[in-house]
């Protein structure tokens, strides 16, 4: 401005192509690798379904796997089993979730915070441990409750049997009730209370209001919860794996596991691929009605800045019934199974609690397993996953979420959709695909059976979780906060770690801890991939369990939960505080 402009003053400028700089290339690269891995693994499933034999062997492209799937009555049995199992799961989890959501969101139930905390913390405890607990409680031969009832009434056969299709559906339903609660309560919270108040003002009683106003309004959310539960049930491995497999009850997921780990013969990768392709298709098709229902439910929700509190339904003395229900649930879903595991871990063999049994109880198993070097290795592997996996997820999800919420790339919507894919698609399929891939390249890169394969698949599958959290966090950061730094001359990378990262730190920490805890409790993917040298705690327990070492499995389970409790509790306190901060800021 001090000098007169000259004709060639602009010619010295280097043209910069469309504002791309090094940091943006890096972000795109990181996000691209993640997206490529997700899509690549899904294609691997389809690809392996079109081939026969062992990975790496030359094979013609063939539909023979689908032919044998369609002609085998076993596949129909698996399909029917999966459907019934899913139906029972939904029938148990959704009504429970709805009642809990209604009690907590709509009534004056005392100690709501306690109920919410227990429900949320319950989600984090490993499902396969609860399933083990239920075997100890209600197995026809070793179930403590069965033995107790038989002795009490002089019965000759066990009255309860958890090792049935209904039984595993019931246990799965119990473990999924908190998830149903979370989904439904969000819908109830978003519903305009004035709609309910309008009914009561005009003389409609509580019950009719519930049936004629509240339920129809909540129905889309309820339907989306049901569909989601269905996809979760199809993918579920823990409960069918722990209780069903030993009793010849196979759902899709355990059938695939059995094909890869048969008692005799070679693994049938081709056939498992065909099963997997069907599961992928089914879960993706289910997403259509899921999103339609979800959209419908959002239409019914109020969007208002002010918190609009309705007068809660007064339970008066009925609160005892509410807490009775909640209490029974916690007893069945957590307390009894966990107590059963603890009890079994103390005994040389399974027996019902009695004076003699108590005399035989000891901590002998615990001191014995303390010197197990394989267990130590599994613990170290678990610890490694708990640190590395969440860190990678947070980094990759940040890159993806930044591109999705901040850039104007045309492909950002596709990127978001790809990052979401591992959410509905059963995770065990990603494990199956990566196992196949690792076997394919095992001559070049000896990845198969290493802890890195587990690491990779955990990261790929849970990026969907990381991006959900971080998309949400980043949307809340006003675009102008970033632009102000840009105008101030700050580079993209610096903006990312000096402005955005501090502002979304709660989301980052939340995603990190959650995925770390998930890595701790994860069984499904691990059993597909763990080799003797890449055992983790969950697969070690799984091995003990199916090898007949029920007592040892129980003892390690107790140790696992003891270690986990303080982690989960601190996580819960952190999450609550962040939520509190978030709501006060809004």
């Amino acid at each position, binding site marked *: 401005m001090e000098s007169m402009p*000259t004709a060639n003053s602009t010619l010295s400028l280097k043209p910069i192509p469309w504002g791309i700089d090094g940091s943006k290339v890096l972000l795109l690269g990181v996000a691209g690798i993640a997206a490529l891995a997700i899509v690549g693994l899904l294609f691997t499933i389809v690809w392996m379904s079109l081939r026969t034999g062992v990975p790496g062997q030359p094979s013609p492209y063939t539909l023979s796997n689908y032919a044998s799937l369609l002609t085998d009555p076993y596949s129909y049995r698996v399909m029917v089993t999966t459907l019934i199992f899913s139906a029972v799961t939904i029938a148990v989890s959704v009504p429970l979730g709805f009642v809990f959501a209604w009690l907590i969101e709509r009534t004056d139930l005392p100690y709501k915070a306690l109920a919410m905390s227990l429900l949320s913390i319950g989600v984090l405890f490993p499902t396969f441990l609860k399933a083990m607990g239920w075997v100890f409680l209600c197995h026809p031969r070793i179930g403590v409750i069965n033995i107790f009832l038989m002795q009490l009434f002089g019965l000759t056969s066990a009255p309860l049997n958890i090792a049935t299709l209904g039984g595993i559906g019931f246990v799965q339903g119990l473990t999924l009730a908190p998830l149903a609660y979370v989904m439904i309560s969000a819908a109830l919270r978003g519903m305009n209370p004035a709609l309910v108040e309008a009914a009561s003002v005009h003389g409609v009683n509580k019950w009719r209001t519930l049936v004629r106003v509240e339920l129809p309004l909540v129905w889309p959310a309820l339907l989306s919860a049901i569909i989601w539960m269905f996809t979760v049930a199809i993918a579920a491995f823990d409960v069918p794996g722990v209780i069903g497999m030993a009793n010849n009850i196979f759902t899709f997921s355990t059938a695939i596991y059995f094909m890869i780990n048969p008692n005799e013969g070679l693994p049938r990768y081709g056939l498992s691929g065909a099963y997997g392709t069907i599961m992928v298709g089914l879960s993706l098709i289910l997403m259509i009605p899921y999103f339609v229902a979800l959209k419908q439910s959002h239409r019914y929700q109020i969007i208002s800045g002010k918190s609009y509190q309705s007068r809660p339904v007064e339970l008066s003395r009925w609160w005892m019934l509410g807490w009775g229900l909640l209490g029974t649930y916690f007893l069945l879903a957590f307390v009894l199974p966990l107590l059963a595991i603890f009890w079994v871990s103390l005994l040389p063999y399974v027996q019902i609690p009695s004076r003699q049994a108590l005399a035989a109880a000891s901590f002998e198993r615990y001191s014995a397993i303390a010197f197990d070097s394989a267990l130590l290795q599994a613990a170290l592997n678990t610890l490694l996953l708990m640190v590395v996996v969440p860190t990678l997820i947070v980094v990759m999800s940040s890159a993806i979420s930044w591109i999705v919420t901040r850039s104007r790339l045309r492909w950002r919507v596709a990127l978001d959709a790809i990052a979401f894919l591992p959410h509905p698609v059963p995770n065990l399929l990603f494990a199956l695909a990566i196992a196949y891939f690792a076997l394919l390249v095992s001559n070049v890169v000896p990845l198969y059976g290493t802890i890195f394969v587990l690491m990779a698949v955990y990261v790929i599958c849970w990026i969907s979780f990381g991006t959900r959290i971080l998309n949400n966090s980043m949307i809340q950061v006003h675009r102008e906060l970033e632009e102000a*730094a*840009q*105008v*101030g001359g700050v580079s993209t990378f610096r903006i990312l770690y000096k402005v955005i990262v501090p502002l979304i730190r709660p989301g980052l920490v939340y995603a990190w801890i959650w995925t770390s805890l998930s890595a701790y409790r994860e069984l499904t993917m691990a059993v597909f991939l763990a080799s003797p040298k890449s055992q983790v705690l969950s697969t070690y327990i799984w091995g003990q369990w199916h090898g007949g070492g029920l007592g040892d499995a129980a003892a390690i389970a107790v140790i696992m939960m003891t270690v986990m409790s303080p982690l989960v509790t601190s996580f819960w306190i952190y999450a609550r505080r962040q939520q509190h901060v978030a709501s006060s800021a809004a």
Partner: protein
Amino acid sequence: MLGRDLYMIGIHSLRKTFKTGAEAVRAVDDVDLQVSEKEFFVLLGLSGSGKTTLLRCVAGLERPEAGEIFLGEQMVSSAERGIFITPEDRAIGMVFQSYAVWPHMTVFENVAFPLTDGKRRLPRSKVRERVMGALEMVQLSGLADRPVPFLSGGQQQRVALARALAVEPKVLLMDEPLSNLDARLREEVRDEIRSLAKKLSITVFYVTHDQVEAMALADRIAVMSAGKILQIGAPKDLYHFPLNRKVGEFLGSMNEFEGTLQSDGCVKTDLGVVSCTVPNGTAKEVIVAIRPEDVSLSRESSGLSNEFPAQLVSQLFLGDMTLCYLSANGKKLRGKTAGLDQQFEPGSSIYVRFPTEKLKIFPR
């Protein structure tokens, strides 16, 4: 670009289109304008007129698809030549509508951040002095160590201003900086911004939808609508001599009458024949317009031209003036009288007169 004057901002044939689904909205449509050095330039327009997009193009936050932008002698954007300087490399300061102060930093850190982490970095020893100087200017030096979420809206706005000034920009861009403040504070901050800009002799490019704010601040105003600049000029010129009806209406309310141009140069309206100065080449069908405060009201006829009998329908006392709703020959019109010194009874018959020099003629 040869022969350009000392322009601080030069915008040539600029175009920017947004695609929303199948629709393409031309937010900036072939805009040309120049802002002189040390000028306070205000871009005035309704929301959706493209004014913010134009400002963001100058900042480098949007990339135009055609045209050129100069900051001083530097070409910062030229779609034709493939030149695009990113915002961090343009020597600008900017105040955002949402303030955009970083909530995880203190007042001091907010102002210092571009100086410690940006392209226009200062040696560490100089940062403090510069930041405190900027805070001094906006009277916030006492609150330097306060985290910004603990500040009021007006104070956050000052932080944003201090941050933009601290980099000593060639050009200060402001995007509706006052729209989130309450009315009283808005006037106070508005006047401060104007005097600060003049004291520091910086070039300001300011966007607003509020015509009073625009007139109070600007050396020159550009009125923008549907992506195009309708008129550029000093506030007084724009107010009194709008080139078209839209600009006239935008800067203040007007009484408008449809009429037909007669051969004698007068305009025949529903009110009667109005004599006025009609520019050459005006079409036959015209609109005659006059601002309410230019209508003179009296109880008695003055005998001058352009005077018509009218009825006072109602009036609104607004403190500093009284707004009169009138009816003349079945046409509604508005007039203004200062304070309490001229009072009429509702329903009374009075005379309205349109001084010739205050009449505006637009093609219909």
